[in-house]
């Protein structure tokens, strides 16, 4: 592969990935409204298109055409930069996420990810940790007490839970021995006793998985950890002062983060694209992608499900939960895993 083709392929892959991701984000919103609606015995969006399927499009148009308010007394450079930072870092991680094995198109062996880095997981963690700036800066630059409180809460919460999140992943890393997401997924191929998939979650990382899931919910500021935007306390938290497209950016960032988290959970704990393969060769080459998307969808559904069922924590409970429960649990998980690996 020459460098020219590499660049061309990369650009194409990037465009496709962005398109898919943004679409997924838009339809996650639709999904959420629909599912929550049904959970709450409502219909959710139904008017725009069949089952309201065109609702995201309408929302987008609405966001674009709404007046872009800039309140007085905001710190303008950061007020404008904050949503961009948020959405940029949210979309960044998709570049490192493999969604399947390589496929052959036009004689080129193209891996199904934008780039494979041997420390992909670390980079995703780093980028995710940078996402907090968007939230924090928006909260601070809005020059509003609700925003500020939201931003403070968000930064404290995200910094705190990042530790538990990172430690919960170490178990997986120890069993696999690599930072490369592709390696991690490949290590999960095959079955125990012929029928149980050799996924990490069945490979001793069940505790790690739950710690990861809970930390990830906190990282993405989702219920039950959505204190930074708790509407009953802080109006809308850090994006109280935002409107129109800037608000939409935060929205996109949140859902993109959710998708990233779901992807990571799939890749790290649920065997990524591994699943039963059958049928003709074309189907065989597409099935992994299907399995991957299906698993991600399940996680997205769980996100929404949790949102529809669980109440919100109090802030001190949130902190205590993170520091006093999740962190020790993650450490315990790490120690046990390390011992098991060392004894093998």
């Amino acid at each position, binding site marked *: 592969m020459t460098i020219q083709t590499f660049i061309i392929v990369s650009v194409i892959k990037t465009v496709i990935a962005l398109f898919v991701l943004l679409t997924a984000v838009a339809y996650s919103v639709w999904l959420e409204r629909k599912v929550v609606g049904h959970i709450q015995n409502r219909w959710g969006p139904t008017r725009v298109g069949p089952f309201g399927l065109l609702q995201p499009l309408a929302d987008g148009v609405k966001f674009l055409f709404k007046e872009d308010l800039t309140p007085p007394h905001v*710190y303008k450079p950061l007020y404008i930069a904050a949503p961009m930072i948020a959405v940029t870092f949210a979309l960044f991680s998709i570049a490192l996420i493999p969604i399947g094995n390589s496929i052959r198109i036009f004689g080129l062996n193209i891996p199904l990810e934008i780039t494979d880095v041997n420390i992909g997981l670390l980079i995703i963690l780093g980028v995710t940790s940078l996402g907090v700036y968007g939230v924090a800066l928006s909260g601070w630059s809005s020059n509003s007490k609700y925003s500020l409180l939201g931003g*403070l809460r968000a930064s404290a919460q995200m910094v705190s839970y990042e530790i538990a999140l990172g430690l919960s992943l170490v178990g997986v890393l120890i069993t696999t021995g690599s930072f490369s997401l592709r390696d991690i997924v490949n290590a999960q191929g095959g079955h125990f006793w012929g029928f149980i998939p050799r996924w990490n979650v069945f490979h001793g990382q069940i505790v790690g998985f739950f710690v990861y899931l809970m930390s990830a919910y906190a990282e993405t500021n989702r219920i039950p950890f959505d204190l930074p935007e708790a509407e009953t306390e802080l109006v809308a938290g850090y994006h109280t002062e935002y409107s129109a497209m800037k608000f939409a950016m935060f929205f996109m960032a949140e859902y993109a983060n959710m998708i990233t988290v779901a992807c990571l959970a799939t890749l790290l704990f649920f065997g990524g694209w591994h699943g039963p393969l059958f049928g003709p060769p074309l189907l065989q080459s597409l099935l992994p992608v299907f399995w991957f998307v299906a698993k991600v969808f399940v996680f997205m559904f769980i996100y929404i499900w949790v949102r529809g069922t669980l109440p919100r924590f109090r802030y001190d409970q949130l902190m205590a939960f993170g520091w006093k429960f999740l962190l020790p649990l993650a450490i315990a998980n790490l120690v046990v895993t390390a011992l098991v690996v060392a004894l093998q």
Partner: protein
Amino acid sequence: MLHLILFLAFGAVCVAGAVNLLVQRHPINSALSLVVVMGALAGEYLLLGAEFVGAVQVIVYAGAIMVLFVFVIMLLNAGVEERTKGSRVALLFGIPGMVIGSVLIAWVLLTRSGSGEVAIGALPGPPKEIAQLLFHQFLLPFEVTSVLVLIAIMGAVVLAAKPGPAQPEKKEE
């Protein structure tokens, strides 16, 4: 060539960020400039093959330490810097001294460094090998550092805790 271009690009970002840190009067701008510097430095590390270091640079420095800075700036609601004239010494001696020192160092580095060159990815720092070093050769410093961090955490809590029955603030990285 590509190496040089990338180096210069990242270096330019670094220097720009550093200079911006100096020029900006609002601490939050300075902080963000510093984040930029650190990100660009992570890029430099990647160029040098120290990928793990680069990643950790982003996670720890940009993602944790600087967040802490921003957090504190927000918490204290630090405003625009005042232009007080507290120290003539700093201006009269410090800056000229600093300039002289750095110019001399740069001059020496550029004229006398010999043929030392670094190739792109010259020394791959795969996490495994670093871990080998860290947990074997540098095990004692590692453990001592962990104790240091523990002490720092406790110290920070004690220092920042409000006197009285109020809930102590949690702030760690």
